């Protein structure tokens, strides 16, 4: 339809009879809009180029060890800077991002484990059990949730829900959790409310709008006749959902989930406020304080500026590059998948 529209506006056969002027009145608009539409592509390439350029010395100095070991030591700024591998750096500088990579992945996975069932359940109830008016009301809450600034999520997490959970909920869970694989992670010291689980909960609330609004739109696309047919065969509501509705839109939901994951991986401010911001230590249980790549960049960039050789800032560029490549892959993958199998496009930006 779009190409139809474009062709029709571009080849105005009939009007030319009435208007002998051959000058196309669309010229300037077309040029300005073409230039504007290239801007995002240029911005994307510029961001990638600048990051690679910034990160290169850090990549050379930190080597492969950056991904596998776990220290965050900017070096001794009082000693004479040293040159290694052709990179000038403060003496004894040593960077390993293993802990923040683990922290990023774990907190996002926790968020996904909470957000995916909550979003699917809410979207199913609203689109299959309740009427269209209620569907609209859920939309308002999702918009609100998507619109609340991430610092406000952080404020709520660090001053309200974190302390509440660590005082009333976490100790009970930790006490009664059996000492078996995975569940063992819920045992032990519960901390002061800043940590993996609290961050995961906050992140879940932040990515619910993306997953829930997309699933709601997807569920609306499932043909009524097919669902009614299944019900006529004697299936219960749940069976219709799990055997007809969900399989019909599964690819779209996977796409929305990956998009939500990408958003959780890159979320910065809220996590920086509820993670406890420790550097160089791996979490020991699900309540442990930790750090993510994005939160590390935002909390340490100003102190990194002290490093006269620039290695600290460039190391953050390397971390940012890793984060960007991961989210880029997730975004492209999710969009390709959804475009291939469904007419619903994934949301751009924050969802809704």
């Amino acid at each position, binding site marked *: 339809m779009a190409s139809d529209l474009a062709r029709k506006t571009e080849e105005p056969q009939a009007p030319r009879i009435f*208007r002998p002027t051959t000058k196309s009145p669309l010229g300037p608009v077309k040029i300005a809009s073409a230039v504007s539409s290239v801007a995002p592509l240029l911005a994307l390439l510029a961001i990638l180029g600048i990051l690679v350029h910034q990160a290169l010395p850090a990549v050379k100095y930190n080597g492969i060890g950056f991904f596998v070991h776990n220290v965050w030591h900017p070096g001794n700024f009082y000693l004479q800077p040293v040159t290694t591998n052709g990179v000038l750096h403060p003496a004894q500088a040593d960077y390993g991002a293993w802990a923040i990579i683990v922290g990023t992945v774990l907190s996002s996975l926790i968020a996904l484990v909470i957000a995916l069932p909550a979003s699917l*359940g809410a979207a199913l109830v609203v689109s299959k059990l309740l009427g269209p008016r209620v569907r609209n009301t859920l939309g308002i809450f999702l918009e609100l949730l998507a619109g609340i600034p991430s610092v406000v999520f952080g*404020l709520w997490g*660090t001053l309200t829900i974190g302390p509440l959970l660590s005082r009333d909920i976490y100790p009970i869970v930790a006490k009664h959790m059996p000492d078996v694989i995975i569940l063992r992670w819920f045992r032990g010291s519960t901390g002061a409310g800043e940590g993996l689980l609290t961050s995961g909960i906050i992140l879940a609330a932040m990515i619910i709008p993306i997953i829930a609004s997309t699933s709601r739109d997807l569920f609306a696309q499932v043909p009524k006749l097919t669902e009614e047919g299944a019900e006529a065969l004697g299936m219960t509501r749940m069976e219709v959902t799990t055997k007809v509705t969900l399989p019909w839109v599964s690819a779209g939901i996977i796409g929305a989930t990956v998009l939500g994951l990408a958003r959780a991986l890159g979320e910065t401010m809220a996590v920086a406020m509820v993670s406890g911001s420790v550097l160089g230590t791996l979490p020991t249980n699900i309540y442990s304080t930790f750090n993510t790549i994005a939160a590390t960049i935002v909390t340490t960039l100003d102190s990194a500026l002290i490093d006269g050789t620039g290695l600290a800032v460039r190391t953050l560029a390397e971390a940012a590059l890793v984060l960007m490549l991961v989210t880029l892959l997730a975004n492209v993958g999710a969009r390709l998948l959804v475009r291939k199998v469904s007419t619903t496009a994934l949301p751009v930006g924050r969802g809704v």
Partner: protein
Amino acid sequence: MARNHEALTRIGARTRRRKAASGAAISLGVIALALVIVPSVWIVAQVASKALPHMSWSVITTPGVGLGGGLENEIVGTLLITFGVAVVAGFIGVMSGIYLSQFARGRTASVLRGASEVLAGIPSIVVGYVGYVSMVVAFHWGFSLGAGLITLSVMVVPYIAKTTEVSLRQVPTSYVEGAEALGLNPGQILRTISLRSALPGIVTGLIVALAISVGETAPLLYTAGYSQNLPHLGLTHSPLGYLTYAVWTFYNEPSARAIQLSFDAAFLLIVLVLALITASRIVVTRASRHQESA
């Protein structure tokens, strides 16, 4: 006969089990719905209850002084940055949407569209970092309004472009054909037919993009910097404050007044975002009412 009866009761038990499972699933769904609704209401109520009791005009009308004072500089800063984003990202985004819906086709279109969508997915701190090393450091702009609003614009242009493109594509072909039949040239059709009927959608997208930029922090911390002075209109070399910064720094200070200011700023942010969301809803409902009557 007996066997038949046995089979029937077995089926009966199975049906009961299936119905029970279905009922359980529905209650889980309702819990899920609550999980979606509760946080949004809780956050708004919590921030309002912490901010409102001590809210006064002085918070809005005096600039910050150390850990006290008010939020005037941050409010003006947020409004200034948002206005700048509306102009810069609004122009580029709408233009880009026009190109994608009217002129671009085939491979070019999908590459441009894909790049724009992927750009929106880049973590905000990464965009902020690049804004810092390029504009603030390499271009010698320093922390400034210009660096801040360009960084934010990069983040919201894809959103505006997408909503513009979608709204323009939803303009019925019959409108355009009718206009062609009446002898309008393409420029007139775009201006008076396509853009006019797509306007509500475009405006909604723009408003939501502004709501996003009002709430962003990470891209601004190292581009706009921070200042307690009232911002002025210079695009470079003058850092400025904004509301999200106040939330981010003041909550952690060992001062009751600072924490209060943090909640005040959070409250003002929520009010701004809610106002923008409401505005976008009003635009949508008015537009749909107009369509129904037409």
